[in-house]
């Protein structure tokens, strides 16, 4: 395969995922939901870092913030598929 073909296939490989924010994180980010192109969770953070302040990004990366993909808690850097729903969940206070 030529490098040009690989480049073209990469360019065509857009992975649109929705990213949702809840409670104080929603208020910090200023929107409830975003549609972004990200093939894994690290890429989500990269995209967010281009749009939001370091302070907001630090809040999203806080140790007590849990991240879910399609309603399932995840850790590390899971690979994402088109249409996946990523959610940033601050510490819960129900009951």
């Amino acid at each position, binding site marked *: 395969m030529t490098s040009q073909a690989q480049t073209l296939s990469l360019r065509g490989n857009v992975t649109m995922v929705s990213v949702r924010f*809840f409670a104080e994180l929603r208020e910090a980010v200023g929107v409830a939901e975003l549609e972004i192109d990200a093939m894994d969770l690290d890429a989500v953070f990269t995209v967010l870092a281009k749009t939001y302040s370091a302070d907001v990004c630090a809040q999203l990366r806080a140790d007590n913030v849990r991240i879910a993909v399609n*309603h399932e808690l995840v850790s590390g850097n899971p690979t994402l598929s088109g249409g996946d729903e990523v959610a940033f969940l601050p510490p*819960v206070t*129900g009951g």
Partner: protein
Amino acid sequence: MDSRVQIQSEDFDVARIYTELRVQAAGHAGAIVTFVGLVRDHNALAGDGADVDALVLEHYPGMTERSISAILDQAQTRWPVSGLRVVHRVGELLPRDQIVLVAAASAHRAAAFAAAEFVMDYLKTDAVLWKREHTRLGRTWLKSTSQDAARVDKWHESGGLT
């Protein structure tokens, strides 16, 4: 969809849910425990001593139900309960409003009491819900408390959620 779990903005009728559980148990239950959580008008958590005008509960449709189902599954593996129900309200609530109902049916009272307490304790730490308190001083997202975490640790030590 888990018929044991209801998330709703409207109020609930404890008597109706109790009766449903009683009918469902069909004579096997010797005990039904119901617990109802209410909105206080004075919240020590905020620390400023201001009266609470309203409490707003936010949820994540789908994941909230799923998180509560997982708690109920754990309770059902730990105790021989014949029925479990959780109703949790979301949206804007006022002081004295009902927020949450937990009901547990079992052959004997010890299991019903324990299962209801277990579910309520884990609702505080694991259910995907967030509370915002409105007082004359402003709006504050509530923080989880160390007492809530300690109550769950107690269950964890005796074989709770892993």
